[in-house]
């Protein structure tokens, strides 16, 4: 199934360098009902060498969700490295 994956900050920069100018916001084919917890490994295979801060969080459809969430077609998953707004 197809989901959208978005990267931010230095992760976005590295994703573009590794896989082209739109790689920070692109559609990706993943197994049906993939648990959110399994997405990081899959992304690190797709983007070898992508830096991954230890406290990176995952959001689905603009909301932080637990790792047990099962992805659905069309979900927008954001990879959120440590934030630094304010």
């Amino acid at each position, binding site marked *: 199934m197809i989901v959208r994956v978005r990267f931010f*900050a230095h992760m976005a920069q590295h994703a573009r360098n590794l896989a082209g100018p739109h790689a920070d916001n692109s559609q990706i084919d993943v197994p049906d009902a993939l648990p959110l917890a399994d997405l990081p490994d899959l992304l690190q295979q797709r983007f070898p060498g992508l830096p991954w801060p230890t*406290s990176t969080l995952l959001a689905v459809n603009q*909301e932080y969700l637990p790792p047990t969430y099962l992805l659905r077609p069309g979900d927008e998953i954001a990879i959120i490295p440590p934030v630094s*707004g304010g």
Partner: protein
Amino acid sequence: MPDFHFSLSTDPLDPARAIAAVTRPEAGGIAVFLGTTRGETHPTLGPLLHLDYHAYPEMAEKETRRLFAQAADRWPVLAAAIHHRLGAVPVGEPSIVIAVATPHRADAFAACRFLIDELKKTVPIWKREHYQHSARWQAETTDHVAPGK
């Protein structure tokens, strides 16, 4: 639910606008916080020139509204405004203005403090530090998982 005013903009922030947005006849106190770009010099990268803020805008607004709802549950908030600047913010200028109006001052201070503290933990906005000799994302300077892990 009390009024909440949120904005992301590349224009310079005007604290008077945030204050006007929360001014209410029922208010006894308005607490305001401005986060400003602090000039500092890195030992090898040189003086900081500006900070460059980027957001995941749709989620930044959603997450900030969630924090506001939490604040309004805990304190008798009459109105609040959070204005965050994006793009380059030079030294001495504000990147964020938060204003909170409540009937009594202790609640205004507590709710304002809560909003800035929580925003800094969870709202998807990132800064890139532009020094004279180099630029780097703040998030780059944190621990990373080992490559290949």
